[in-house]
């Protein structure tokens, strides 16, 4: 069912994404393009290197990418850099192999649980996470 992919929660998240926009203090940023569709996302780390993870983002992107970026910024907030990268890699792999629901990840990530049934859209969901990993590492 297509409504399983476009869950109400995901649509709402896309309409009101968490940490959308530039932070006041930018420590570093990374821009990535999705060559399949031309979507663009920029992920920002606020504060300094010694600060915990505090990601923000700007994007021209679909609902899935925007909601996924919102989940990224919300769920990684406050993590230590190394823990944040580890968490993001975990989610990225789970999105790709369809095991998102099997790893005890934060519950709100479950709204991306159907993405593996839509192979052409997996990159939409992983783009914010891969961008953030590149930014933080």
């Amino acid at each position, binding site marked *: 069912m*297509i*409504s399983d*992919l*476009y869950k*109400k929660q995901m*649509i709402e998240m896309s309409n009101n994404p968490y940490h959308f926009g530039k932070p006041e203090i930018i420590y570093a940023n990374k821009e990535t393009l999705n060559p*399949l*569709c*031309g*979507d*663009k996302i920029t992920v920002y780390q606020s504060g300094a290197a010694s600060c915990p993870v505090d990601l923000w983002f700007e994007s*021209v*992107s*679909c*609902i*899935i990418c925007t909601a996924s970026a919102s989940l990224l910024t919300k769920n990684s907030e406050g993590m230590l850099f190394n823990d944040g990268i580890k968490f993001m890699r975990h989610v990225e792999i789970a999105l790709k192999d369809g095991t998102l629901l099997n790893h005890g990840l934060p519950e709100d990530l479950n709204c991306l649980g159907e993405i593996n049934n*839509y192979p*052409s*859209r997996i990159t*939409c969901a992983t783009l914010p996470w891969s961008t953030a990993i590149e930014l933080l590492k």
Partner: protein
Amino acid sequence: MNTKQKRNLTDIREEFPILDQKINGEDLVYLDNAASTQKPKKVINAIKNYYEKDHSNVHRGVHTLSVRATEAYENAREKVSEFVNSPNKNQIIFTKGTTESINLIAGSLTNLVQKNDEILITAMEHHSNIVPWQELCKRTGAILKVIPINKDGEILIDKYKEMVTNKTKLVSVVHLSNTLGTINPIAEIIDTAKLYDAITVIDGAQSAGHLPVDVQKLDCDFYLFSGHKIYGPTGIGVLYGKVDILNQIDPYQFGGEMILKVTFDETTYNDLPHKFEAGTPNIAGAVGIGASIDFINSLDRDLCHQYEMSLHDYALDQLKKIQSLRIIGESSIKSAIISFVVDGIHPHDIGTIINQRGIAVRTGHHCTMPLMDFYEIPGTVRASFSIYNNHAEVDKLIDAINLSITMLKQ
């Protein structure tokens, strides 16, 4: 719509076996014809028969299968030659597709292009008609200039005429825009370029399957297209070129087939068209494109165009009734391609949702990122029609778009 047209179109649809299937439990509605057309049984069977009965390597073989394969390959060249009204079949070079055809020209022209020469393209070009020229400019110091368009998606022809000068070495223009559907005034563009002895290249990827092409009448230097957009197979394309320029430019690739004589000291190149066909060619692909041309020739092309445009016009009327939907590209001279955006909804999301209704459209930038920048959009939804589509499929498209809007704007 007259009775004869209805009967013919029904027959045509039945010749495309792929259309008789369900996607996500719904009848397939294939509206992605600008990306690739589906294949009639005639083409599928021609390729199958070739591999079952006639396959071998071409040229130089003395055994029966090699002779048959060579005949099949060269007969296909003859069909392509007649299809575009080339003066000679040796001016038809088989490539992998339009992209390779353009790369062949751009890669072979290095010795004819000098620093500060100007190459003109339009703002609506496919990446394949941008990037090879950028690379040629990098190698030679030539300058790439872009002919502007208006918001309707039409070339500013007066501006173009101002841009063509004695510095203009080459003008490369798409005949029919894959994103907008605009049919460009290529005869006028070619005539103007000729005043300054500029080389003219016409990207016919979208047009060859929908519009009659007469390269002698156009008097272009090059005309290029792909097999898979004219009901033929993927992996085969065509480059038509004028003899004098084909003889002036260097080969693009080197190896077997393209030589007359090889010693360790030097190599003499073969004559046209073999000079540009290094290595074992795509023989089955050539057989397939030959069969696709037979298929097109069996149709009344004017009738096909009228029918496709009736689908386009009907769809356009319905789409314009949808609030928040905006058409991208409204030239008065168009083919059956419609691009659109819906405010606040990403094209990919629409494409995914309507796919659940069995509807195949293309979403994204359509390999025309600079054009997307011009319209300040990330991409469009593109519905492109062919002779096997029907008005009921347009209705399904409209219903599915309305569904996606309702769903995503909750």
